[in-house]
């Protein structure tokens, strides 16, 4: 029997899902080499990770808590990348959303929750949409590389946040001064879903985001245009699609969803603005979207997986001292192995 490699006509969805799972396992396998370098036993380490992420109701709730911002950012990235607009500005867009949410939660605290919460949700979406839309406008109008602009805007947002919590928004009652804002009004807090855990209503917002993203991308003409531009901008232009408008729309929605993630972190979790309001969710959200194959349903699974990774790695760092930065390295490996997987599923081995 002779084996030969040939191209598959069309890779089935199942093989693509399988490729994602294999990519994750390859990344974790390479990660275990790093764990050995850190002087730990990978099996012990990964067991600590697994227990940390799923070991109790509390741990599982924490995993979902981390998955919420990842899901929202990942959905936004999905929309942008479907349009082939490479937004890596989720971090900055999340931060401006968080700043907007805090500001309203402090300034309009006298409002009833029924008015204040919708106002905060809409405003932080708009703040993120403006931050992302600015990069989209520069790309659409001036052909400025959005990868660089969005990264630059991340740093601008981070320094702006550092300034806000030390200057205009600093809590004056905290002596010595931890850099943080005062607590927002209770009316601006998202309700908690399970008593005794930190799981908050941001989860419902994120799940609503999944449905809306799905409907937008696959059931509206706007979404069709965004995908057409991503598939082939020349053909889309020739077909009469407003390419500039689609790019701007994709970037604005992308930023808006990240802005919502910022509102979730403030109103659902911390109830105040802090330096470390985002621990890299904007970047991990990119990996979530890619691992989820830019499909809203895939993004749910990927967000849950990386929520577990983040919570589990924190536990791993606490219990056996493996540095948390491992999770970022594994994210890089997941991206690279996913790409390798996409190449491999295009081929199959046949025996004659």
């Amino acid at each position: 029997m002779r084996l030969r490699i040939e191209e598959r006509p069309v890779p089935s969805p199942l093989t693509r899902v399988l490729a994602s799972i294999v990519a994750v396992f390859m990344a974790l396998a390479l990660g275990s080499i790093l764990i050995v370098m850190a002087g730990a036993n990978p099996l012990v380490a990964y067991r600590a990770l697994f227990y940390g992420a799923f070991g109790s109701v509390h741990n599982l709730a924490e995993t979902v808590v981390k998955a919420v911002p990842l899901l929202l950012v990942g959905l936004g990235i999905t929309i942008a990348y479907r349009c082939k607009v490479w937004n890596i500005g989720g971090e900055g867009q999340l931060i401006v959303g968080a700043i907007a949410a805090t500001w309203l939660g402090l300034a309009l605290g006298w409002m009833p929750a029924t008015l204040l919460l919708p106002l905060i949700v809409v405003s932080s979406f708009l703040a993120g949409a403006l931050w992302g839309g600015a990069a989209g406008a520069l790309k659409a109008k001036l052909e400025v590389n959005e990868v660089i602009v969005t990264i630059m805007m991340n740093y601008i947002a981070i320094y702006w946040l550092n300034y806000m919590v030390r200057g205009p928004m600093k809590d004056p009652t905290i002596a010595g001064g931890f850099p943080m804002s005062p607590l927002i009004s209770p009316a601006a807090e998202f309700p908690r879903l399970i008593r005794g855990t930190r799981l908050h209503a941001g989860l419902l917002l994120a799940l609503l985001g999944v449905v809306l993203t799905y409907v937008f991308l696959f059931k509206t003409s706007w979404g069709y245009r965004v995908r057409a531009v991503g598939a082939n901008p020349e053909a889309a232009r020739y077909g009469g699609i407003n390419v500039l408008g689609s790019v701007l729309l994709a970037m604005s929605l992308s930023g808006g969803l990240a802005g919502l993630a910022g509102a979730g972190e403030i109103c659902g979790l911390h109830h105040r603005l802090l330096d470390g309001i985002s621990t890299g969710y904007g970047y991990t959200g990119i990996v979530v979207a890619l691992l989820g194959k830019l499909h809203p349903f895939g993004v749910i699974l990927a967000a849950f997986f990386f929520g577990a990774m983040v919570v589990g790695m924190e536990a791993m760092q606490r219990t056996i001292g493996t540095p948390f930065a491992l999770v970022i390295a594994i994210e890089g490996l997941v991206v690279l192995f996913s790409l390798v997987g996409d190449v491999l599923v295009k081929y199959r081995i046949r025996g004659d």
Partner: protein
Amino acid sequence: MAFLVSLLAATIRLATPIVFAALGEIITELAGILNLGVEGIMLMGAFAGFWGAYQTGSLWLGVLLGILVGALMALLMAFMSVTLRVDQVISGMGIYFLGLGLSSFLYRVTFGVRTVPPTIEGFKEAPIPLLSRIPFLGPILFQQNILVYLAILLTPLLVLVIHRTTLGLMIRATGENPRAADTLGVNVSLIRYLCVVLGGILVGLGGVVLSTAHLKMFWENMTVGRGFIAVAIVYFGKWHPYRTFAGALLFGGAYALQLWLQALGAPVPHQLLLMFPYILTIAVLAMVARGAKGPAALGVPYKRGEA
């Protein structure tokens, strides 16, 4: 006058990491590969350079290790983009995350958590005899550390290679029209591998400069965007080393000015001063982007026998 001299000297010194990284990206992009993993490669170079210098006590062994690691990271990028022909933007992000995570991880593993971060002696100023005594220009150009001189010499050398040699012609042909280059007998894959790895060596060196000549220590994400700024400067420099060097100086100036204003106690919060280079990057890109047309085949994978 003394103030202007020190500001300009700092400008050149602070521009050096970006000069190396941007020159590396020029070689890479001229061959048609868009490497957006520069930031991650720079961080790996910075860590490896620092670790090597700390462990061996030899700065030059540190430099060697830094460029070796830069070359290895770039080899991975080349494998993804040339052999597997995957999307270069996404593989660049993968390299970025990998470099960011791995450099922080390895730093924690090798040095542990310490209250006082480990430092090295680092490269010192090596004034060039006679030249450094020239009034005004001497202290600006010729009282720098040796890596600064290397950056200044490398720039014209690169112009020479790119525009005056057969190899340079082959590189540019590969980036402009790989099919035509292939037809004329140029080994497109080989040229691309070569350029990506050479580029990685320079990018890694840019990182080494940060950790061994500027700060003399390493910390997580110590490049804070310089790798991406280097990519932006390649656009600004329209893929020409001299213009790119000038662009890097612009940023060196921005960093120098920001440090000077901070030291002066300017009545502006220093977080706002820190934003300055990033705002400048966006402004510069917005001004030049439309006219900046790179190599025609930039970012497009090449496959023989495919239209």
